[in-house]
């Protein structure tokens, strides 16, 4: 760990006042402190934001609003969330461990860093950590890496489960900086690695996430998050699917789908959504609709199984929803 200054802010304006590229906001610290100990993140200033009033889980006419400092466990167990947005609760419940979820915040979750082992080991080359140094994962161990949205510079997955569910439900993030506030659709928040994998999102230096809003929809209440991994708990996804269906009778009226564990960012699958719309909710429909889900995938030496796993995860999630009806 490198020396840094530590301050605690009491208001959003105070927190963002002179925050810049060298500043890291401290929420639960489950990503930040971990990576500082590994010398992967070396902020000169750490600003504790835990006293900021970024709380509250509310449902109104527009939808669900969650403060950036709400803890993962509080959101996961919230009755409104469980009832109206089950996939959000499930995505959180299937994340990390109970202890971590008691600490970790919603804002921090969306900004957690990749679990690529080379990113976390400062003795190896990694373009995301050290632009231009190379990507060790291309020739190294890459079983858990992405197949969609990758570039020659970086093939790391975005690890958040919550973000996958939020992208499926067209959530937006509210941001604040010294220049004012703005709202960005989460699907446009994350950047593809391209040649600049160290740029992970559209957040400006010193900009703060203040909250997340998820619109009301006829499908959010009939949704599921399926997470596939080697062990039953306490592991990131090899593949995950956030699926919401609006069914009329036995016909799919609307579908919203995003997948995790396979993309360099949470990956919305609008093609699959379209292929389901207006079709009977049957195994045949599901099989054919997911046929192209992994189109354009660029598998690596150790993750050639991911296109097939992705398709099957989707069929599994669709089947769960159809059976639950």
């Amino acid at each position, binding site marked *: 760990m490198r020396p840094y200054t530590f301050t605690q802010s009491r208001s959003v304006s105070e927190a963002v006042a002179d925050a810049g590229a060298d500043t890291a906001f401290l929420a639960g610290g489950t990503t930040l402190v971990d990576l500082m100990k590994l010398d992967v993140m070396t902020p000169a200033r750490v600003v504790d934001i835990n006293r900021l009033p970024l709380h509250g889980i509310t449902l109104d006419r527009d939808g669900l609003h969650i403060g950036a400092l709400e803890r993962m466990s509080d959101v996961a167990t919230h009755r409104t969330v469980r009832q109206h947005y089950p996939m959000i609760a499930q995505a959180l419940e299937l994340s990390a461990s109970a202890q971590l979820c008691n600490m970790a915040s919603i804002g921090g979750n969306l900004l957690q860093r990749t679990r690529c082992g080379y990113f976390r080991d400062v003795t190896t080359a990694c373009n995301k950590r050290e632009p231009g140094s190379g990507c060790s994962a291309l020739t190294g161990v890459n079983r*858990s890496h992405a197949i969609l949205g990758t570039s020659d510079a970086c093939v790391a997955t975005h690890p958040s489960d919550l973000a996958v569910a939020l992208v499926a439900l067209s959530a937006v993030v509210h941001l604040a900086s010294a220049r004012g506030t703005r709202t960005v659709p989460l699907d446009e928040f994350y950047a593809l690695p391209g040649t600049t994998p160290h740029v992970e999102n559209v957040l400006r230096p010193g900009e703060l996430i203040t909250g997340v809003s998820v619109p009301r929809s006829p499908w959010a209440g009939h949704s599921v998050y399926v997470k596939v991994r*080697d062990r039953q708990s*306490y*592991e990131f996804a090899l593949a995950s699917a956030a699926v919401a269906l609006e069914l009329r009778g036995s016909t799919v009226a609307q579908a919203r789908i995003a997948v995790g564990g396979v993309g360099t960012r949470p990956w919305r699958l609008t093609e699959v959504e379209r292929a389901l719309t207006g079709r009977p909710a049957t195994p045949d429909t599901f099989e054919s609709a997911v046929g192209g889900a992994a189109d354009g995938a660029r598998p690596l030496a150790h993750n050639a199984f991911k296109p097939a796993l992705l398709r099957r995860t989707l069929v599994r999630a669709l089947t769960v929803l159809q059976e639950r009806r």
Partner: protein
Amino acid sequence: MTNSPVGREIDRVDGRLKVTGAAQYSADYPAPGTAYAHVVTSTIGRGTITRIDAGAALASPGVLRVYAAPDPRLKLYPVAPQFRGLVENYAPLQDTAVRFHGQVIAMVVAESVEQARDAAALVTATYDAQPPRTSLADEPRVPAGPTVSGSPSNLTILAPGVESIDAALAASDVVVEAEFHQPVQHHVAMEPHATLAVWDGDRVTVHAGAQIPPAYALLLSQRLGVLPQDIRLISKYVGGGFGARVVVWSDALVAAAAARELGRPVKLVLTREQMFTLVGHRPHLTQIVRLGASRDGVLNAVSHESDAEMPVVGGFNVTPAHATSDTLYRTPNLRVGPRQVILDLPGSRAMRAPNEAPGAFALETAMDELAVATGVDPVELRLRNYATVSPATGLPWSSKHLDECYRVGARRFGWSRRHATPRARVDGQWLFGVGMATAVYPATRHPASVRVRLLDDDTAVVSTATADLGTGGWTMVAIAGADALGIPLKRVTPEIGDSALPQGAPAVGSSATHSTVPLIVGAAREAIAALKQLAVTDPRSPWHGANAEDLRYEEGRLRAHGRSMSFGRLLTALGSRGVDATASGPGGAPAGYAYHSFGAHFCEVRVNRFTCETRVTRFTTVADVGRVINARAARSQLVGGVIFGIGYALLEENPLELDTGRLAGSTLADYLVPVNADIPDIDVHLLDRPDPLLIGPLGDDGGEVGTRSLGARGLGEIGNVGSAAAVGNAIFNATGIRVRDVPITLDKLL
């Protein structure tokens, strides 16, 4: 004694200390003036260090020393010939050679843990790198050395007139040939390896987790160049060994040497990342098993060959057929041939059932394949090939109730409801399957000494330098002491984990309990004899002048001539603090027999129909381990072993980068072991049949002290043997897919 604790469900005597945090592990000990160390490790797989830049680290706050290879100030000696093969074969920080990725190349010592860690991050090194040899498939092979029990590891037994094992296989009706692969696995003990070294002149006290405290002290003294009697190793509470704490690793050597050079106590705690390269691993290996049998499954030939990694710095010599293929089944033709492949990898070490876990995975999977090929039920197949004498040695067993394990296990599990055809049971999203396998583990007794002291407060102290790795050693010593002396458990004070105590049994090879217990019995008997002697010779004793043979000892009291007195009262009356006696035993067991524990595993899994991940839903293990000393601890050991087996089958793997020699996994988030959610209730049943030939070094029980002929065998590792095969066989039954490369992850079943 009617209410002996032996065989009951006894709580850990150290349980309260552990859950309240009062039990001190190595890193918990304070020492005035302690300085803190942090090591820096190599980032190439093989080569030479050309330069280490320690300037920035030295200038960093609180830094006292930076030791960079080669640093003669540390004064570490090469391994003495008698210890070669037992420890890594180089002296750390004494030359510029890089032998593996993740080797110690420098160490920072500072006033605080944080200062040492932060300064260590500033040390940089340049190398003259060479490509490391990492390929098990491509590097040259050499025959493996002798097995852990000293027998030759290469063995061929042929029936009269049979020319070769190949000929025997060719002449068999049914042949199964299968190749198995197991990657690098790690002990991942919960407690990080920690060393605190405190010098006092030429004498040093070291706090470090050790499975064999006296041997650890001896190895350390040689490397430091001090006399064996000048080193004391304290290892009272240990957070897991699993084989990684059998020997002295480079961390303890450099910490102790630095403390001497600096003239201050030095504490070094490895990080989790460092533990993946500095304190051993289970060597990766390939095995080929060939079975030849008649159409009804009677074996005619068993062949078991293997290629295992042997790190250039030394490591564990894996002989996977040892106690598995050379032991389990009757066969007229047997060939076992382990080989080694020298690679530039971190030092390896025995890891839980080091030969038997991999060996049984291969053999017991192949047996399942033979069951499929012949259409014989897997339990029946094993009974048809049941061995009554060891196939390798021709010796009968001291005691063997494996057939009963199969039958009791099958009944408890409901094996008869199994569908022989794969994919026959589907429930919703899940395919269900069942599988079984055999467990076996050699019973070896090691030399040890135990001292029993009877004190004037009516308590007894039982002392021996064995170790409790979390396994229940403290409690075992207390139970056996209480039983041997016929007094309540709470009046026995166990003393272990200190090399200054009488030489204890190693906590390795599932042998600590059955090596120690007979000597506790022996020492108790001698202590009672000493008490009687005192009673008849001391003028203040009521039995002064009586004949020692007339005194009876019962439940903590001496009785004779119408009088009875507790030993405490007698000692008080005589003004004596206590009497003691020490018993020593050479280990071993009566010749002419084979000694093994046995068991049978039955497993049910479900495999997701869509995404193919496997979850274990039921597990039954029945084991024949001789006498059970503590039913609770015994069950825990078996359950722990089965969990290890589930991890072996489904999760554990550290991927090796062939071009760099780097082990890719370095945290418990990417080196996966089972979590609670992966483990169902595990049904463990122990037959509790005392082994009639393991009744202690002193022959018969002598009639007066407790249960004496305890007849215990080992049970620490046997749960780990065969359990992975039971999981894999269940996966085959569920899916029809046979996976011979562990871990059996979902991508192999898609």
